[in-house]
C-alpha cells in the first residue's frame, strides 16, 4: 500500500495483560521502525527491522517487549504483562533505507493500560 497502516487505533488493557500491535509497511520499503511516544513531544526508538531481520533493537525493553516482521504478514509489536507506564502512542514507520531515506509514519496505536 501507499501508507503505513497500523491497527488497532486504540487498545485498552488491564495491567498485566498482553497487548499486540500491528503494522503494515509501505510496499517496497525494506525497513520498519517502532517508536513509543509517551510524553506528547518525545519519541523513543524501540526497534527496527530490515525485511524480517532485526536491524537495531537497542531501544527495546527486552524483558516484556518483543517484535516480529515475518514475510507476507504485518509486522507486530507485543507487550507481555503490560504496566501502567506502557501507556503511550506506538508509531510504526517504514523507509526504503536508513540514514538519508525519510521515514513514513503510520497514524499510531494508542495503548492505555489501566
Amino acid at each position, binding site marked *: 500500500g501507499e501508507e*503505513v497502516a*497500523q491497527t488497532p487505533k486504540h487498545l485498552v488493557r488491564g495491567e498485566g495483560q498482553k497487548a499486540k500491535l500491528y503494522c503494515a509497511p509501505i510496499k517496497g520499503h525494506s*525497513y520498519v*521502525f517502532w517508536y513509543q511516544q509517551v510524553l*506528547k*513531544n*518525545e*519519541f523513543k*526508538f524501540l*526497534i*527496527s527491522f530490515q525485511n524480517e531481520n532485526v*536491524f*537495531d533493537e*537497542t*531501544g527495546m525493553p527486552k524483558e516484556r517487549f518483543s517484535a516480529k516482521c515475518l514475510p507476507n504478514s504485518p509486522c507486530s509489536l507485543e507487550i507481555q504483562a503490560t504496566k501502567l507506564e506502557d501507556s503511550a502512542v506506538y*508509531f510504526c*514507520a517504514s523507509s526504503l*533505507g*536508513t*540514514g*538519508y531515506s*525519510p*521515514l*513514513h*509514519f*503510520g*497514524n*499510531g496505536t*494508542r495503548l492505555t493500560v489501566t
Partner: protein
Amino acid sequence: AQSVTQLDSHVSVSEGTPVLLRCNYSSSYSPSLFWYVQHPNKGLQLLLKYTSAATLVKGINGFEAEFKKSETSFHLTKPSAHMSDAAEYFCVVSGPPGGGADGLTFGKGTHLIIQP
C-alpha cells in the same frame, strides 16, 4: 554524536502572516535533516528533507527550509500561515546510512498556533 534543538516550544502567529520555526543541530557527519508535522491523533507527516543537494529545500503545503552549515541551522518557514497549519512540528537529524534508527534524533517539537 548528534543533537537537535528546536528553539521554541510554542509559536503563535496570525493567519496570513509568515511562519518561522527554528531548528539548530550538531552532527559529526554530513547530516540529513527533515521536518515532520504531526496533527492531533495523527502520525508524523514528512514536510521536507535536506540530503546535501540544494540548501534551500521546498516542501509540501508551501513550507520551505534553508540549510545553513555555518550556522548549523535548518529553520522552517512559510510566507503565509493558514489555520490548517496549526500542529506540532518536529525537526529530525539523521546520521549516515547504516547507522540504524537510533541514528535519528528528534527535536522536542514546536507547537504552532494560528490566531484567526
